[in-house]
C-alpha cells in the first residue's frame, strides 16, 4: 500500500494511504488519510476489513499505533469503517470514534462494542493539538444521507469523502496519487458522481459551502487527489454535472 505525505509543517502532517496493489480486484480501491499534530493522530475513513492488514502495516511504518487518538467515519459504508472492530483491537482503549448521529446504530452492526462520538447534522470542530483544529463539515446526501467532510484550515486540505471520487482502472494508474490531467481524469469520476450522488440541492449547498474555504488540496476517499487549480476545476465541474442518473431506471 502506498503512503504519500500531502502536507508537513513541524509536527503537523497529512498522509494518504491507498492504491494497494495486492488487494483483491473485486474490492474497490480506497484512500485512507492520517492527520498528525502534537503527538496525536486521527485516521479518516480507516477502510474496510479487507484493506486492514495492509493499512495497519503501512500505518505502523509511520507511527506507533497508540498515537491514534481518534477515528473518523465520513459515513456508514463498509469500505469506510467495516475495519472498525479490528482498529479498536490495536488502538488505545479510549480511542474516539466520530460518526454522524444518523449511523451510530447502523455502524454498530460492524462493531457492537464500539462507543461513538456522534456528529450533529451541522458538524463540529475538534482540536487535534493546541494549534491544529479540524472542522467536520456537512456533506449530507453526497452520497450518504448522514455524511461529513473534514477541513483542516491550517493545512488547507479538505478530505471530501465521495466528492471527487474516481474509479481509475488499475491499468490506467500511473503511479501517482494526484490528478495530473484534469480533463483526462473526468472519464473516471463522471459515472461515479452521476450515479452515486442523488440530490442536486445538496450538491449546490456543498459547492457554495466549500467555495468559501481556502483549499490547496481536495482529498477524496477513492481515486486521485486534486491540488492547486484542479481543486477549483473540480468544484466548477461538479457544480454543473447532472446527477441522480439512477432515477431514469424507475417507472419504465
Amino acid at each position, binding site marked *: 500500500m502506498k503512503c504519500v505525505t500531502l502536507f508537513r509543517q513541524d509536527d503537523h502532517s497529512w498522509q494518504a494511504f491507498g492504491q494497494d*496493489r495486492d488487494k483483491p480486484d473485486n474490492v474497490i480501491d480506497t484512500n485512507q488519510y492520517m492527520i498528525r499534530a502534537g503527538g496525536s493522530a486521527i485516521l479518516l475513513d480507516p477502510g474496510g*476489513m479487507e484493506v*486492514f*492488514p495492509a493499512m*495497519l502495516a503501512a500505518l*505502523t511504518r509511520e507511527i*506507533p*499505533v497508540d498515537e491514534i487518538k481518534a477515528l473518523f467515519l465520513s459515513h456508514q459504508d463498509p469500505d469506510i469503517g467495516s475495519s472498525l472492530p479490528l482498529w479498536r*483491537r490495536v488502538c488505545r482503549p479510549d480511542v474516539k470514534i466520530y460518526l454522524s448521529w444518523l449511523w451510530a446504530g447502523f455502524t454498530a452492526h460492524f462493531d457492537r462494542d464500539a462507543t461513538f462520538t456522534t456528529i450533529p447534522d451541522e458538524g463540529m470542530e475538534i482540536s487535534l493539538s493546541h494549534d491544529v483544529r479540524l472542522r467536520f463539515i456537512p456533506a449530507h446526501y453526497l452520497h450518504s444521507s448522514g455524511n461529513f467532510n473534514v477541513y483542516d484550515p491550517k493545512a488547507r486540505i479538505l478530505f471530501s469523502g465521495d466528492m471527487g471520487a474516481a474509479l481509475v482502472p488499475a491499468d490506467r494508474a500511473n503511479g501517482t496519487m494526484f490528478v495530473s490531467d484534469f480533463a483526462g481524469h473526468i472519464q473516471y469520476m463522471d459515472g461515479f458522481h452521476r450515479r452515486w450522488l442523488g440530490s442536486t440541492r445538496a450538491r449546490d449547498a456543498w459547492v457554495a459551502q466549500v467555495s468559501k474555504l481556502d483549499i490547496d488540496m481536495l482529498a477524496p476517499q477513492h481515486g486521485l487527489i486534486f491540488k492547486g487549480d484542479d481543486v477549483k476545476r473540480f468544484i466548477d465541474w461538479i457544480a454543473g454535472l447532472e446527477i441522480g442518473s439512477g432515477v431514469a431506471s424507475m417507472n419504465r
Partner: protein
Amino acid sequence: MNQVSTPVRERTPRTDRIEARANGLLSDCRRAFHAFGELDELAENLRILSLNAELAAGRAGDKGRAVRALTQYTRELVNRLAQIQGEMNSLRGRTFALSSTILRGLSQMSLFERACGLIDDHDHDARAKSAADHAFHDIMRMLVDTLSDMANCVGELARRAHGVEEVVSQSDSIATNIAIEAAAAGVHEKEFRTVSDTMRHYVDDLRKMIDEASDAVRRASEKGESLRRLGMDSLGELGFNG
C-alpha cells in the same frame, strides 16, 4: 513527498487450519439440528395416535384397560418429547449465536495473521508487531472460550439426543405391549394392531432421526475438542497461555 509500498500479502496457514476444522464443527451441529427438524411433527403424530388409541381402548371396555394405561403413558412420553424439543430450540439459538461469534473471530484472526506477516520486517518497530500479536492472541482466546461454550452446547445436545433415545425405547416397548394386548382383544384386535403398527412406524422414524443426529453430535463433539486443543496450543505458541 515520500512514497513507500508494503510487501505482498501472505497466506494465513494457522487460521486456515482452524477455520477448516471450525467449518466442519459448525456443519455437524447444523446436521444434528436438521436431523431433529421433524421431531415436533413426529411428537404431534404420536400424540394424536395416543388419543385415537385411548378412544379405541374405551370402546373395547375391559379388554381395552391395559391399552388405555399404555396410551396414557405414551402421552407422558409425548410431553417429554415436547419438553426436549423446547430445550433443543433454545440450544439451537445459542449454538447459532456461538457459530456467528466463531466465524467473526476467525475472519478477524485471519486478517490479523495477515497483518502480522506484513509487519514482521525491519521497517516496523517492536510495538507494531506486539500490538498485532496481542490482538491476534485476544481473538484466539475469545475463540477458545467460545469453542468451550460450543463444546458445552454439543454436550447438552448429546444429552437431549439421549433423552429422545429413551423415549424411542419406551415407545417401542409400548408398541410391543399394545400388540400383545391386541392378540387377546377379540374383535378389537385389528384396531389395536393398527395402533401398534403405526406406533412402530413412528418409532422407526424416530430411531432414524436419532441415528443421524447422534452421528453428527459425536463428530461435532470430537471436532470441538480437537479445535479447543488446537486453539490452546496456538495460545501456548504465542506465549500468552494462562
